[in-house]
C-alpha cells in the first residue's frame, strides 16, 4: 500500500470517528488542536487504524502521534 492510499484511508477513518468532513482534514491537522479529538476519541482512532490496516500498534508510541501526516508515517512504518 502506498502512502497516498494510506493517507486517504486515515482521513476517512478520522472523518468517521471525529464526525468531520474529509475536506476539513489536512495533512498538518493536529487531532486535538485542529480536529477537537478528546482523549477517548484518540483511543478510538488507534483502534480504528488497527482495524482498518490489520496492524497492531504500540499504544504508547501511537498516542504520541499528533498529526495526520504523523499517523501516515506511523502506519506506513507498521505496515513495512
Amino acid at each position: 500500500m502506498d502512502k497516498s492510499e494510506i493517507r486517504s484511508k486515515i482521513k476517512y477513518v478520522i472523518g468517521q470517528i471525529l464526525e468531520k468532513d474529509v475536506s476539513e482534514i489536512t495533512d498538518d491537522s493536529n487531532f486535538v488542536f485542529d480536529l477537537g479529538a478528546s482523549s477517548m476519541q484518540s483511543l478510538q482512532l488507534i483502534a480504528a487504524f488497527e482495524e482498518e490496516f490489520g496492524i497492531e500498534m504500540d499504544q504508547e508510541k501511537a498516542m504520541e502521534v499528533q498529526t495526520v501526516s504523523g499517523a501516515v508515517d506511523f502506519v506506513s512504518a507498521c505496515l513495512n
Partner: protein
Amino acid sequence: MSLVKFIAMDPFNQLMTPRFQVHKNNLEKLFYPRSVAVVGTNNIKGTVPYDILYNILKAEFKGILFPVSPGEKSICSVRAYKYVIDIDYPVDLAILVFPAQVCHMAMEQCGQKGIKAVVIISAGFKEVGEKGRDRETQLKMIAERYEMSFIGPNCLGVINTDPAVCLNASFARKMPEEGTIGFLSQSGALCTAVLDYARAKHIGFSKFISFGNKADISEIDLLYYLKDDEKTKVILLYLEEVSDGLALMRAAQDIIIETGKPVLILKSGRTDAGASAAASHTGSLAGSDEICNAAFKQAGIIRCANIEEMFNIAIAFAYQPLPKSNQIAIITNAGGPGVLTTDAAISEGLELATFTEETTLLFKKYLPATANIKNPVDVIGDARADRYNLAITGAMSDPGVDGIFVILTPQSMTDIDTIAHEIVKVTEGYTKPVYTSFMGEADVRSGVDILQRNKIPHYILPESMCRSFARVCSFKSDRYERNLQVKTFSDVDKKTVQSIILKSLEQHITFLSEEKAVEILEAYRLPIIQGLVANTSAQAAEAAAKIGFPVVMKVLSDEIAHKSDVKGVILNVTTQMEAEKAYQSILHNVNISKPGVKIQGVYITKMVNAGREVILGIKRDPSFGPVVMFGLGGIYVELYKDVSFSVAPVSESAAESMIHEIKAFGLLNGMRGMEKYDTASIKSCILRLSQLAMDFPQIQELDINPLIVLKEGSGSFVADAKIVLQ
C-alpha cells in the same frame, strides 16, 4: 526609628527584573478581565474543560465569555470558536484547558491575538518529568516573546469574588463568598478542600489563586499584587517548596511595612534529609525547616501549623480591629470553661484586665449575686441574651480592656441564637475586637452560623481563640518595633580572605582547617587567639612555652572535619615535656583512626578555662542564601539543639533577638546571681559573620565551636573554627 528595608541590601532586586514588571502590568487583566476565552473546552460534562466554562457562567461573570473548541459549534449555548484567533473581539484573559501536548499551539495563538494574561489549567508538565519540563520551557519562551504572563500550568484556576467581576475560572465546585482574605496555593487539590472548609464557616475570599507549577507567575508576583489589592486585608499562602526565599522574605516585609497586611504561611515538607549530609555542626543543625522558621519569623511572616490554625488567625485579622494591647476580658456562662480560657490566655502571654471600679459596680448592680464579677466574668448558667449584653457592654466600655472573649455553653435555658444575635448587635460600633467560643457542636451550630455570617470570629475551642488573639497581638507589636538596619563594618580585610579562598580552591581544597579558618576570621576582626603550628615534638614544646601554659594542642589537617573523633585534641597541656608527648600522641591517634591522612602539623593555642562556650556558624541555604546560627555550646547544642538562626544580612535587632531567644539565654544573662557574660561581643561576632557570608559566596559552611565568651565587658575569642568552601 529609621527602617532600612531588606530590599536595599539585596543586589538581585526582584522588582527591577523585566518579567516582574510585565507581570505587574498583566495581573490586572488576569483578575479583572472584560473578556475571557476558555481555550480547548468541550461539551463533555464532568470534564475539566467543560466545568471551567460552566463555572464561569454559573458565577455570573460580568464580562464576555468565548468558548474555543475545534470540535463544537457551541458550549452551554454559547457560540464556540474553532481557534482563539477567530474571535473578533479583544480578549483579556485566556484559560487553557487543552491537553499539555498542544498547549503551546494555543499559547502561540493567544500571543498572536494580543492576549496578555493566561491561566494554564492543564497538567502534564514539569510534574511528569523531562518531557513535561520541556513543554513548560516552550510555554515560557512564547510568553516572553509576546510579553504575556501565565499562571500554572497544572493548577486549579483563579477566582475573583469582586462583584464587579465575579470570576470563577477554576474547576472548584462552588464560588466562595466574597471576603477580604487573599489565598494563594501551590496545591490545587488542597484548594478544593479549603474552599469547602471556608464555605461551611462563611469565610469569604477576595482572590483565590492556585498557581500550580509556577512556571511563570510565582507566589512572589502574586504577593505583590495582593499587597496593592484594595479588596484584600489578609494574605494566606500555602507552599510546598520555597524557590526564592529571599524574594519571599522581601515581599512579605514590603507588604507588612507598607500596608500592615499580615502574611500567613503554611509550608509543608517539614522533614529534611539535607541536614544529615552536612560537614559542620551548623550544617547539621540548620535543616531547611529550621531555616524556614527563622526566615519567616525574621520577615514577619506568621507560620501556621495547619489549615485550621491558618484560618483561625486569618479571621481574627480579617473580621476584627487589631487590639491595642493584650489585656482581655473573658465573659462566660460557666466557670469551668472560664478557667480553661484563663489558663490558655495566660499561657499564650495574654493578660486578664483588671476592671475599673465603675465596671465592677455596674456588674455588681445588674448581675446576679452568684455571678462572678471579676475577670473572667461568669454570668452563670441561666444567663440569657440580656445578661450577655450587659457583660459585653460593660467590658467594652472599660478602658483597661482591649479584647473580649465570649464563651457560651449550651444549658437548657440558653437562648443560643438570640445571644449570637445580641453579640453581633452589641459589638457594632466598637473598635475593640470580640472573639467567641460557643462550646459544643450540634446545639450551638445555628448560633455559630449567625456569628460566622456576621463576621464575628468563632473558635470551637477557647485555646484556639487565645492563640489566635496572641498571634494578632504579637504581629501588631512586631510591625512597629522591628528595626531592620544592617551594620556594615569597614575595618575588614577582604583581600586576605579572597587570597586564602582562591588559593584553597585552586588546590581543590574545600575544607579549611583551623589555621586558615582563624586567619579568615581575624581578617574580619573577629576576636581570635593567636596560635602556632608545630611540625616536630621539639617545635611543639617550644611553641607551647612561647604561648604560655596551659595550652590546647589540635591536629591540623584539611581532611579532618571533627578532630575529637580521631582523638586529635589534647587539652590542658601544662609543661614542655607534656607538649612533646602530646604532639606524638596526636599523630599516633590520628594515624590509627585515619591512616594516610595528610597532616599539616599540630596547632597550639592558649587554653582559657574561664568563660562560657557558645557556637556560631554560617550555612548557605539554596533558597535563603547564607544563614547565621547561634547557640550555647556543649550539651546545649549537642542534646537540646538550643540554637537560633537569622538569614543574612543580619540586622542589629535580629542579632540581638538571636541571642535572647535561645532557651539558655539566662545562663549568659546573669540569672540567679550568676555572672553576666559579654553578649555585646557575641552580637558583634554575629554581625561580622553575616557580613563575611554576604561578601564571600564561596563559604558554604562555617563553624566557630566554641567561641569562648568572657564576663561582661571582657570580650570573647574564637577557640576553634572550620570553614567549608563550595
